[in-house]
């Protein structure tokens, strides 16, 4: 909590600078899921900073256990400063066990942050969306998925670099995606929502390589 009040909020406000759109669409209480595109480690911090300090403990990013619980500092930081829900990416067989922690958090009224792309990938380019989000909300009628697009963070701190360069970033929050019968329909709908939200971005997209 202090970490967010003293470090993350000022950092996001001044060093980065956000162009926020659709703040009203942000869920105020859980259970809810935020599904955002993923370009940078900063994504999680920016998304969490959208919420008031008093609510930070209810915001739980879902993150890969094999990456974030790997070493000493990273494990301590992810667990105590961010309070992630670790996800075992290698265990693809047993969906129930995979999402057990997530369901527990949702039952507890938490707001989950998910990145359906699965990984940060190439900076500022969308990767194929994974179906995990669909399976997570399939049997829950109390939980809605709010799509959020972020742009510019892949310029500020892309994958594989340690040099942070200040850039303004866009955060566009959309309306919740209605529930679907089939996973493919849900993914298609989510992808089209992302495309739509990208139109409201101000910052410039990185040119195709």
């Amino acid at each position: 909590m202090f970490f967010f009040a003293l470090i993350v909020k000022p950092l996001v406000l001044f060093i980065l600078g956000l162009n926020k759109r659709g703040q009203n669409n942000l869920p105020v209480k859980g259970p809810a899921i935020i599904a955002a595109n993923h370009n940078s480690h900063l994504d999680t911090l920016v998304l969490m900073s959208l919420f008031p300090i008093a609510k930070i403990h209810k915001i739980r990013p879902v993150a890969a256990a094999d990456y974030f619980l790997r070493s000493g500092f990273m494990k301590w930081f992810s667990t105590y400063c961010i309070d992630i829900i670790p996800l075992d990416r290698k265990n693809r067989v047993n969906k129930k066990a995979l999402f057990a922690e997530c369901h527990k958090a949702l039952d507890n009224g938490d707001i989950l942050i998910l990145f359906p792309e699965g990984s940060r990938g190439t900076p500022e380019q969308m990767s194929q969306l994974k179906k995990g989000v669909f399976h997570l909300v399939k049997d829950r009628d109390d939980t809605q998925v709010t799509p959020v697009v972020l742009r510019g963070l892949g310029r500020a701190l892309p994958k594989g670099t340690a040099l942070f360069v200040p850039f303004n970033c866009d955060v566009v929050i959309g309306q919740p995606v209605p529930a679907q019968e089939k996973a493919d329909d849900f993914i298609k709908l989510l992808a089209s929502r992302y495309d739509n939200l990208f139109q409201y971005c101000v910052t410039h997209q990185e040119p195709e390589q």
Partner: protein
Amino acid sequence: MFNIPQNSLYTMLLVLLFLCIGTITRLVLKAKFPQKDYTELRQRIQSWWWMVAILFFALVFSKTTAIILFALISYLALKEFLSIVPSRPADRRVIFWAYIIIPFQYYWAATSWYGMFIIFIPVYVFLFLPMRMVLVGETKGFIRSAGVLHWAIMLTVFCLSHIAYLLVLEDKNPQAGPIGLVLFLVIMTQLNDVSQYIWGKLFGKHKIIPKVSPNKTWEGFLGGLVTITILSGLVAPILTPLGFAYGLLAGLIISSSGFIGDVVISSVKRDLQIKDSGSLIPGHGGILDRMDSMMFTAPLFFHFLYYVKY
């Protein structure tokens, strides 16, 4: 308390009075027409209060805080500019250097090292950044990146830093002090935006540059030009070392260059197909939307003043 020269003090109080009138007018409008939505007007006036409060506080507190404030404004403007224009992943390191030069440029101003202040960016930075880009080694899109980067630094750092240098010039009007020069430039530039807008709204017919900015008319431009020229002739002897005649000329320079700054940034945004450059200042857009005219008026007013008085 802070020993503000008399004329500058009265000018600041007058600005605060105008803001009060603005706020009262809005509240009256809201009471008279409760069904209309005045959100944008409210945001605009509230943002004016914040901007004026921050500027006045920094100016009154000390020369150093004012210079730091202008450096921060340069930083935010540069960041906003580099965020809306295209850049290559290979440029990140060079852009990092672009941020590093801001404290240097304002340090030259704070220590009134005029020679360094005036050549640092146009010569040293101009030659250094492409060298740094060569070391990165990406040649595709090289000339465009180098051009964009230097253009951004010239406008948001070099041009804006002239406001800071006004504060360290020798004080030739003790009634107003160094603050008077900054107040004069800032107030005339902002009033020019406002009066061009009002004249255009009232009498605007003949468009100047419909392709860039469809709302800009000859009537608005000329009305603003006459208003600001006369006003500046009257105000310059109070806030600056300039007399009435030079004051008129200063007003002419501020009004015409303010217009150009406005439409140049409009062209940039039109090229990138965006309406506002950011959302830092509620009701106004980004910091570039507010500082667009200042980037042109600051160096031109400074060098006019420097030529005739120093």
